[in-house]
């Protein structure tokens, strides 16, 4: 269809021009409606998701109420279902993952943003961002075949160093919350590095120059001036990484030991919400069992929404700040 420019601004258009203009307007309306419909599908789907989760967990919600979140028994035979062991396992493995990933990640981000020559920095960042694309099941496989035996070899040094604390007591079987935490940390480090590096790079140079001009060392300028400036974005990246690790299923279920028990020791096997759903969903006999698993899904959903929401606010805050 060729654009006829001669009919640009008719006051009283002739018959043919009017239909043409009507066709133009119809095209506009059509485009608007079509794209609006598509965009609204997202709202529809998400709404249906929440609704279905809510509806299909009704049986267990009515049976257990809020106690579901605080009960520690998970006994399909007796019909007693409590979410606490899984919430605990999810939180502990993610917390451990963050504990490892934050110092390593932020440290690496600082190095890449401040110290590394630009070519090395972008090259390494490219590699690291690629690593963020590695599927979860592959991390699970690598965790199961490489990390777990490696950690088994590290058991004695760990026990020697930290055996006094309740965190490293008890027998170690390889599959444990420790292994899950380590594997998770590897999975979330790329996010922390990539985003933190970007926000650190976005800090205006005059901040650094001012600090250096006042006699600060490179480190002091970075740690005391630049990083606080980028604080919001870094924290946002941490929240995003946390949200990601909370929902991780395959990597966790292959190395965590799949045991619905609460234990203070990281050497002990554990369970996470996503892992128990993956393991038991296909065999949940009876409405109460299935409903409890779906309710667990609802809990996980709520958790990730909250964390993601916090992350978005923090990251959005920084991108509006310094120029980009």
């Amino acid at each position, binding site marked *: 269809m060729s654009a006829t420019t001669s009919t640009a601004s008719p006051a009283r258009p002739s018959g043919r021009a009017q239909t043409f203009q009507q066709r133009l307007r119809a095209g506009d309306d059509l485009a608007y409606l079509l794209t609006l419909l598509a965009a609204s599908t997202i709202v529809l789907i998400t709404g249906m998701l929440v609704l279905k989760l809510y509806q299909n967990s009704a049986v267990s919600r009515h049976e257990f109420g809020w106690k579901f979140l605080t009960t520690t*028994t*998970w*006994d*399909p*035979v*007796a019909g007693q279902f409590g979410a606490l062991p899984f919430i605990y396992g999810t939180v502990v493995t993610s917390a451990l993952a963050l504990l490892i990933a934050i110092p390593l990640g932020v440290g690496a981000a600082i190095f890449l943003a401040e110290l590394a020559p630009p070519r090395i920095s972008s090259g390494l960042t490219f590699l690291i961002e690629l690593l963020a694309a590695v599927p979860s099941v592959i991390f699970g496989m690598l965790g*199961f075949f490489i990390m*777990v*035996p490696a950690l088994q070899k590290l058991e004695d040094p760990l026990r020697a160093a930290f055996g006094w604390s309740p965190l490293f007591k008890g*027998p170690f*079987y*390889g*599959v444990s919350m420790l292994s899950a935490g380590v594997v998770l940390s590897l999975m979330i480090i790329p996010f922390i590095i990539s985003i933190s590096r970007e926000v650190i790079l976005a800090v205006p140079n005059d901040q650094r120059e001012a600090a250096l001009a006042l006699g600060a060392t490179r480190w002091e300028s970075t740690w005391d001036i630049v990083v606080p400036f980028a604080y919001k974005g870094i924290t946002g990246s941490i929240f995003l990484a946390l949200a990601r690790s909370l929902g991780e299923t395959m990597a966790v*279920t292959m190395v965590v*030991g*799949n*045991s619905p028990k609460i234990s203070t020791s990281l050497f002990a*096997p554990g*369970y996470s919400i996503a892992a128990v759903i993956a*393991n*038991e969903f*296909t*065999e*949940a*006999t*009876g409405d109460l069992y299935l409903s409890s698993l779906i309710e667990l899904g609802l809990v996980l959903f709520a958790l990730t929404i909250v964390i993601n929401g916090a992350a978005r606010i923090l990251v959005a805050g920084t991108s509006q700040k310094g120029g980009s």
Partner: protein
Amino acid sequence: MTRSIIRAVIAAALLASSALAQQILINGTGATFPYPMYSKWFDVYHKKYSNIQINYNSLGSGAGVQQVTAGTVDFGASDMPMTDDELKGFRDKNGYGVLHFPTVMGANVPAYKLPGVSQQLNFTGEALADIFLGKITKWNDPALAKANPGVSLPSTNIVVVHRSDGSGTTFVWTDYLAKVSPEWKTKVGAAKSVNWPVGLGGKGNEGVAGQVQNTPNSLGYIELTYAMQNKIQYGKVKNAAGVFISADLAGVTAAAAGAIKEVPEDFRVSITNAPGKASYPISTFTYLLVPEKFKDPAKKKAITDFLKWMLTEGQTQTEALVYAPLPKAMVTKETKAIAKIQ
């Protein structure tokens, strides 16, 4: 240009999928215990009748019961016969009943990985119960040492491995433990899924076997074939007559002979801790769970044909995979029961 390529690809994909439309595709889910046998059977059967494809997903007996009840698969499989509640649940949901068809018999063995110990260990029922209760924690515990004179057992901790999913194998194991240990019976009980006092969870017989394989000093329970195919050590178990028996076809067949006086009408029976000197105490039948009614006559015919094949030719192939064939009396009764499927 790209658009027409995309169109061509989609058309080809759709064509390819419709070309296979004359096939009869049957889906089943269930026990991992007989999976080596079933995967062999369905493969052989497909080679024989290439238009019939029976796809079996080994997800555990719990999944078998759940999915055949929900109707998301055409048949289920379970080592544990469905309970009265489960049968009622099926009937309530579907309006008709479900039938049990025993297929083979197998042995549940205590498999372990004990570096440095090459002899086959002896386990009493009580010792196994105490290990799984968490009361016996070390390999060189006096109870184990007593049953294994002359074997130098290490002082390491026993890593207990159990099933994390709903499992008929678990039922057979816990059924046996409940029979030999009153404490187990009251504290934990027998079911597809129990509140394990100790241990790690593995998914399916495959997962437990994999876990035992990877974890030194571990002890789990798996079907004999898994232990043999993967060269995993397994122990002898003391039977009701006081003899330590290593699981094999003869032991399983003897257990069935010793336990069953009369084949029950619905085939639901437990043969653990069977009397008899040669009986292997942790033996079991495993069942296909077939709904009484099928909407699709082609599927119904395919399944009934397979059942007939399974009871005749199939039974000749079990020993190669170390599963025991069914007793003759049972085969006769089952053949008659096939007529119940509509």
